[in-house]
């Protein structure tokens, strides 16, 4: 008997994420820290295992070291399976040719042999830059029920933002009659979430045809999906209702982090029924000191807080000294905010040091934007970093 997996997930994690600027200088976007503990890729990986999908290919290309190290053997997500599990798929050298992944479709095409190893009936294509909780098994059920060749997860977005997305124009039964990539004048507000389920045999055929087509940019949204639609394949939308956020920009990353806060958060990572799995920091419980004031915040293990923290997320081992203020900010692991320093409306990458009495960022109303400090940089004593500034080197003032 040949062993098989009904559904194999392919997770596109190769993106550079250039709109995250300093945060992705050295790491791929899916490895960017999120929510005081997680990394972006924890969400699709947790969704997979929670949906009963235990075979995941992670396609990496840009700065893969940290992402590979993070995923490791997949054990934190229970994806260290004897048959299946999580596999890192990097571009490789072939007998005839070798090439980098050229587009989303090409990346999947180059890993055809990986997918075929599991003899799957369905392929789930995911991207590694979205924050959401989704039961893919429900989507797969819908895919089977409609007898579709391709099912695209879709969510309603505000119509004025619709031109940023791939827009699906559908019939009342959910079947898609038109697919428009970032239309100037959108006809509907139903946006593709970049989550596709394909019937495997169809996908393989269209990927081969796409590869043979020299005109193609080898992208799902621009090439493969339109080609399938034009050929009259059965394509359906799958409506997703719930929280879903593309965290590809500094402001959306900040907003999505803030969505975790509050008594009734827009997005709840603490739901025991849908655990978000991740690598856990090796750290003692956080210590909240005598002089600390904490309001509406999320604080991870190993932090030492003596200052004031308002409406912020602090990842593991962050230190906020006495008299320091952290407000409306996302502070990643290991950063230190020293005495009397102020960090407002900012994102600090890991291991940043803000020296005494320095000021980073400005109140969101007055500011030109979110201040971003790249990994392991130091902001000198008493120095001011204006709102909206993005720094990736030590800064001691002008």
């Amino acid at each position: 008997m040949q062993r098989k997996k009904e559904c194999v997930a392919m997770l596109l994690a190769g993106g550079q994420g250039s709109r995250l600027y300093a945060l992705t200088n050295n790491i791929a976007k899916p490895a960017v820290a999120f929510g005081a503990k997680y990394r972006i890729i924890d969400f699709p990986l947790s969704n997979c295992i929670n949906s009963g999908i235990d075979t995941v290919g992670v396609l990496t290309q840009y700065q893969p070291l940290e992402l590979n190290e993070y995923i490791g053997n997949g054990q934190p997500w229970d994806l260290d399976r004897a048959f299946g599990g999580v596999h890192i798929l990097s571009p490789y050298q072939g007998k005839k040719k070798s090439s980098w992944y050229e587009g989303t479709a090409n990346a999947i095409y180059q890993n055809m042999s990986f997918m075929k190893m599991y003899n799957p009936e369905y392929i789930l294509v995911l991207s590694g830059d979205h924050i959401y909780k989704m039961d893919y098994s429900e989507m797969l059920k819908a895919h089977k029920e409609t007898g579709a060749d391709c099912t695209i997860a879709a969510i309603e977005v505000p119509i004025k933002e619709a031109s940023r997305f791939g827009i699906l124009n559908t019939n009342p039964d959910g079947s898609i009659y038109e697919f428009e990539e970032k239309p100037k004048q959108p006809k509907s507000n139903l946006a593709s979430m970049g989550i596709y389920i394909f019937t495997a045999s169809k996908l393989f055929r269209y990927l081969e045809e796409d590869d043979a087509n020299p005109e193609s940019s080898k992208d799902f949204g621009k090439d493969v999906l339109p080609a399938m639609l034009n050929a009259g394949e059965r394509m359906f939308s799958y409506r997703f209702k719930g929280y879903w956020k593309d965290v590809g920009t500094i402001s959306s990353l900040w907003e999505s982090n803030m969505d975790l806060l509050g008594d009734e958060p827009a997005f709840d990572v603490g739901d025991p029924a849908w655990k978000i799995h991740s690598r856990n920091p090796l750290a003692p419980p956080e210590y909240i000191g005598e002089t600390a004031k904490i309001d509406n915040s999320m604080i991870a293990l190993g932090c030492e807080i003596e200052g004031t923290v308002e409406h912020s997320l602090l990842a593991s081992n962050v230190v906020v000294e006495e008299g320091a203020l952290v407000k409306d900010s996302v502070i990643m692991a290991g950063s230190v905010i020293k005495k009397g320093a102020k960090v407002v409306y900012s994102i600090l990458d890991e291991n940043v040091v803000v020296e005494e009495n320095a000021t980073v960022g400005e109140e969101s109303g007055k500011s030109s934007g979110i201040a971003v400090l790249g990994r392991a940089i130091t902001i000198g004593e008493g120095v001011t970093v204006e709102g909206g500034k993005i720094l990736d080197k030590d800064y001691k003032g002008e």
Partner: protein
Amino acid sequence: MAVSAVGVIFSNIHDENIPELSRHRTMASIPFGGRYRLIDFALSNMVNSGITTVGLVTKYNYQSLIDHLGSGKDWDLARKDGGIILLPPYSDETDAPYSNRLEALKGITGFLNRRKEDYVVISDCDGVARMDIADIIRYHEEKRADITMVTHRERDINSNYFIALSPDETGRVRDLQINPIGSGDVNLYVNVMVVSREFLLNIIKDAIAHGLSSFGRDILAKNVDTLRIYDYDFDGYYAGVKSLKSYFKHNMELLNKGIRDELFGARDIYTKVRDSAPTKYFTGAEVKDSLISDGCIIEGRVENCILFRGVKVGKGSVIKNSVIMQDTVIGSGVHLDCVITDKNVVIRDRRHLSGCEELPYFISKGRMI
């Protein structure tokens, strides 16, 4: 540097120290310090010294311990050769399970015979400390000792069973007393010992042949003149968990930064991971001088407390000087002072409970108040 040693951990000895907490679990699996179990300290010390095989001697009530350890991967002890090896009591129809340490050691001679390491590090689970086991072994070799016993200088010992050592200036133990009467400073044996594997097997064999029954009395105390027993003076932070009162005191000591830095400074005390979300502090929460683990949701006031994973503190509640274990749910308007709650306790709205430092108010596992 990795050492050539195998660990042996006794999980049940000293259970009687804290009957409140060991009714449903071993001493080893008593929760401590917000997210740990007592065994995590002994295990982490071994792992951090390069020990990759640890035999775990159990007797009863060890389900919670097995649940905690799983495959051992969280301590990097899921190994092809070695790792964590459970050693439940071995007995046939004629024998009851072991009743003392010597019988327990007899029961694991098979395990010890199969190993290849030079030394055995024997540890109980009644102490919290960060020890460099490699340094103890170095000392043991330097002194050409038969047995090295780790001690900590303490005064006024209040325990139902303890061993005090009197070493000479070279560290060689000249007198070994069990439960000596009278107070003052003593070199309290902290139940961590290094012995060569072959030597241990020989003394066990000899003890069986002579029908001996007590490791402390018949082997150590009786042979203090003939055996080369050395005292390794551990001068770091040591918390011996001798009673509910000392359990409470030592938990509270973790609010001291110096102690915390010493125990966790290198961030290398391993424990089971649970994938909890980071702790959420709501508007209106007031937290001071407290150690808070992950997965908590805090809406009220928390002062001078240790909160374990997944604790909920409702609006308007004031929790002071308390140790609140995993998944305890505290409603709103509750006042607690000097309280220890075991796991999964529920405290309904507007309850007021208090104990005192000498006698903390203890609420057992799963109770609803």
